[in-house]
């Protein structure tokens, strides 16, 4: 299943709800979406991983690039809904030190 992105806006944050696998096929979809948001001035992004149950290094690369893009515009990128299996991969790659993750979507609402 190709990665789908469901967009919503809550306060200053743009939520991108990801559904599908974040791999070599899904990463460019997310990358393009983030580039589009930043180009429109939306620099506070929340990636909702509740619909993602697989991520590999290609997917990790796309969110590293996303973080770089928003930070270079004085914004930030947050992750919510990352399940235990995916968190294991973030820890393995030490990316839990870079990304702000929260299990609760409400943290970034409003």
């Amino acid at each position, binding site marked *: *299943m*190709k990665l789908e992105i469901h967009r919503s806006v809550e306060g200053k944050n743009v939520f991108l709800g990801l559904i599908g*696998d974040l*791999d*070599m*096929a899904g990463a460019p979809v997310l990358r393009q979406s983030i580039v589009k948001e930043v180009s429109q001035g939306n620099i506070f992004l929340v990636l909702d991983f509740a619909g993602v149950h*697989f991520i*590999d*290094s*290609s997917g*990790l*690369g*796309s969110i*590293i*690039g996303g*973080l*770089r893009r928003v*930070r270079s515009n004085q914004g930030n990128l947050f992750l919510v809904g990352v399940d235990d*299996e995916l968190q294991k*991969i973030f820890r*393995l*790659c*030490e*990316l839990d*030190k*870079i990304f702000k993750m929260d299990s609760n979507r409400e943290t970034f609402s409003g």
Partner: protein
Amino acid sequence: MTGEIELSIPVRVDYVQLVRAVVGSLASTNPELSTARIADLRLVISEALTNAIRAQEKNSISERLTVLCKLTDSAIEVEVRDKATGFEVDLIPDLPPTESPERLQHERGLGLSIMREMSDGLEIESGPEGTVVHMTINSQNSNNS
């Protein structure tokens, strides 16, 4: 249950997910392999296939990739073969430290370390005729819990 499959796939990104599903299904027939270990297997095969596809795309080589998968009572072995021009494993540069701002400049470079960490055995043979990546996933992980 033991068994062996061989897949011959086009150099297309949308086949990576299919291979993950097929190999994961084969692995799930072995009750000794936990869900977590099958997840590790799906991850390492995704990394190996991604590298193979990138390598062949870079060299405009359209020959199919080969994935071999052998299930034993205590492990699953997978092998990914490409026909690209090879690479020197020892020449792959290290990534900057995680805390360094420079780290965000690198979107690639995690695949090999993921394969090393998640598999119980990783062998890479690479040369001008192509690369063979051989990985073993034991039912009990020797690298992490």
